């Protein structure tokens, strides 16, 4: 229906677009009026349409938004099409998506003032080869999240790259059926974070030079809680040694520099076949939620966390905890790779070296610790991967 009015509008000369806007593909080029032309295309698109962003540099002053189901926004590559938000004056993110079945691919956002791309209540969304970069590197004034799907069922993040996020590079929150793969998270506070979410697969990623590489968190006081059924496998988690630059007050501000893979609360997490090298505090950390909370629905403990076979290189050799030097010395120069606070339930394959704080209750911190070498059971059965990951149909959209 809107197509008819579009034709009329175009005939009246209202819409000065180079391409006929009722076609299946709307091509946008950089230059004068790009903000309005691109936003207009995003508003007037019909399900099934493709919005092509030609190569070049787009200077944007306001956040963009998409609210039409089934639209693909496609650039000429994450280094070819750059949406530059350096002079952004309004909105809390660069691009906001609130519709289902959207594919975002092959373009970049630079220096958004808030988050990079946020998709909220946007089911079955695909982020493919998208780059979000804060070009000045780590800085507390950078936006919080690079790629930020939240409250969605069906999320596929593939081949993205995020640098400089003051919270998490790739952050999936309060969602289900998630895959994050083949992506690079570099120099963020948290590289990749799965929070209050279920059925997530995080695999074949590189998390490097973040404060913490890959985090799996469950927090109280949120509409959706009960995170779990998460697999973190076959990732390269290397040199996550950037000083924490998150503004205080954010949960990730408490992440210790040098954390590789960290699980906080959650029920059912598998960590296996990852390569962990040069994560100076803890290559793997499994703990309960540390803050006070008042939420009867919430489970603060990490339950059924399984540490499978991983490759541990250097790590735990400069732990950012009080008395860390002495503790490391007591363990022979560096802490063993798996750190557990002793709360909830942890399983680890035979031969896994680790240590436990042996806390009696959450929130005690290192002060209440009675450290000892890790002594936990091996997993009793294979981890149930049923239903974990993004729906297979999302793969088809980037074939």
């Amino acid at each position: 229906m809107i197509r008819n009015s579009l034709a009329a509008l175009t005939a009246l000369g209202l819409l000065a677009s180079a391409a006929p806007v009722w076609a299946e593909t709307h091509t946008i080029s950089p230059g004068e009026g790009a903000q309005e032309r691109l936003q207009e295309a995003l508003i007037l698109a019909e399900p099934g349409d493709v919005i092509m962003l030609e190569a070049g540099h787009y200077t944007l002053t306001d956040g963009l938004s998409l609210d039409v189901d089934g639209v693909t926004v496609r650039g000429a590559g994450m280094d070819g099409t750059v949406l530059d938000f350096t002079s952004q004056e309004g909105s809390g993110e660069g691009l906001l998506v609130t519709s289902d079945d959207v594919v975002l691919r092959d373009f970049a956002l630079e220096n958004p003032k808030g988050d990079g791309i946020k998709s909220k209540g946007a089911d079955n969304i695909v982020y493919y080869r998208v780059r979000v970069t804060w070009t000045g590197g780590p800085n507390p004034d950078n936006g919080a999240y690079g790629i930020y799907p939240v409250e969605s069922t069906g999320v596929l993040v593939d081949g993205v790259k995020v640098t400089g996020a003051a919270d998490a590079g790739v952050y999936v929150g309060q969602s289900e059926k998630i895959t994050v793969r083949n992506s690079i998270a570099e120099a963020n506070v948290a590289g990749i974070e799965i929070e209050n979410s279920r059925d997530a697969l995080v695999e074949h990623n590189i998390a490097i030079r973040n404060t913490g590489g890959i985090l799996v968190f469950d927090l109280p006081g949120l509409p959706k809680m009960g995170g779990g059924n998460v697999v973190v496998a076959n990732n390269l988690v290397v040199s996550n040694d950037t000083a924490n630059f998150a503004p205080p007050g954010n949960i990730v501000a408490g992440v210790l520099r040098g954390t590789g893979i960290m699980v906080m609360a959650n029920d059912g997490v598998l960590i296996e076949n990852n390569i962990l090298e040069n994560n100076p505090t803890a290559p793997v950390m499994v703990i309960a939620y540390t803050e006070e909370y008042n939420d009867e629905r919430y489970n603060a403990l990490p339950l059924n966390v399984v540490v499978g076979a991983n490759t541990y290189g250097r790590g735990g050799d400069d732990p950012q905890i009080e008395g860390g030097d002495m503790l490391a010395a007591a363990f022979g120069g560096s802490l063993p790779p798996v750190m557990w606070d002793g709360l909830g339930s942890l399983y680890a394959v035979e031969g896994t070296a680790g240590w436990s704080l042996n806390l009696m209750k959450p929130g005690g911190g290192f002060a209440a610790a009675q450290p000892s070498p890790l002594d936990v059971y091996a997993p009793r059965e294979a981890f149930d991967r049923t239903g974990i990951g993004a729906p297979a149909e999302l793969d088809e959209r980037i074939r």
Partner: protein
Amino acid sequence: MKPAFAFLGLAAGALALAAAMPRDAGALPPPMVNDALIQGDSLPRALGDYGFFTDGAARNPVGALKPYELNTPLWSDGADKLRYIYLPQGTQIAADGAGLLQFPVGSAIIKTFAFGEGEEQRFIETRLLLHRADGWVALPYRWNAEQTEARLALAGARIALTTPAGDELSYRIPNKNQCKSCHSKDGEVVPIGPRARNMSGEWLADMHAHGALDRVPEGADSLPVWDAAWNAGSNDYAAHSATATAALARAYLDVNCAHCHQPGGGASNSGLDLRWEQGDAFAYGVNKPPVAAGQGAGGLLVSIEPGDPDASILVHRMNSNQPGVAMPELGRSTIDQRAVALMRDWIANMGQDGAAKTADNRAQGDGE
């Protein structure tokens, strides 16, 4: 044939009207609002197309437009607002408790944003909410420099302007999607302003008396009147109690923030619920840590730290102009100094339970 038919239709309409209003017999028929355009599926390109006003400058509404005001209004960079409701002939609004009035299909809500007084008054934009059969549609119209016409601005616009007070503004006309960002509840576009609790009882009674509203609901007119709380032209209150301050603060948050910060709203994932009716202090921010605030938290640990406005994220974000920090995210480019002063006062006098920690409040407690 068609012109003749149209002419006959017009003549018939004029006759009918003449019969209805014998005293005006012989006068021209009153101008008609274009119902087909409101209820159709097009995106009309000019505000004038609807026939809401008799003049292109939209200074003279047709008789069918009913002006209204809100007790506590949304703050939009200090713009004045001219608000009207249009109902198709023979239809009626239904009250839904003290909440949002339920408008029949074919209704329109018209809001013009203006700066300046009298002859100096300039219209910036007019926003329309059209109630179509498949739901509400929100459309922004931008006024031209000559003030003769407002045209559809689907993609919004950013306008440099100077307020009568001499402040430089980078005023943002929202795009169609941004309209929905605020006017969204569970994914559907809905009006925000016309809720019975935030409208004058007199106005509602008048609407009811004219058959345009089914009843005046209980709880109507319960939000405080914002303008009455302030000394004219200043950021100082007229004197009032701490409990009245709390009510005014909650009313402001309800009107300016709760369209996103409520279950089903755009910021539902924050868990922060700023609705007037929310009674749980944690839910409206007391001692609540942020979730996804990033730099917006400003190094602070909770949304509201009772007794300490400077430690409260809510004050920090309302007192910022920086995208990514500033709240609300949309609809303002300057700081509402009155609101910041109000929030500071409210939080400074707040106890750990979120209630006002004052003499008059304790006195109430003693009386129970």
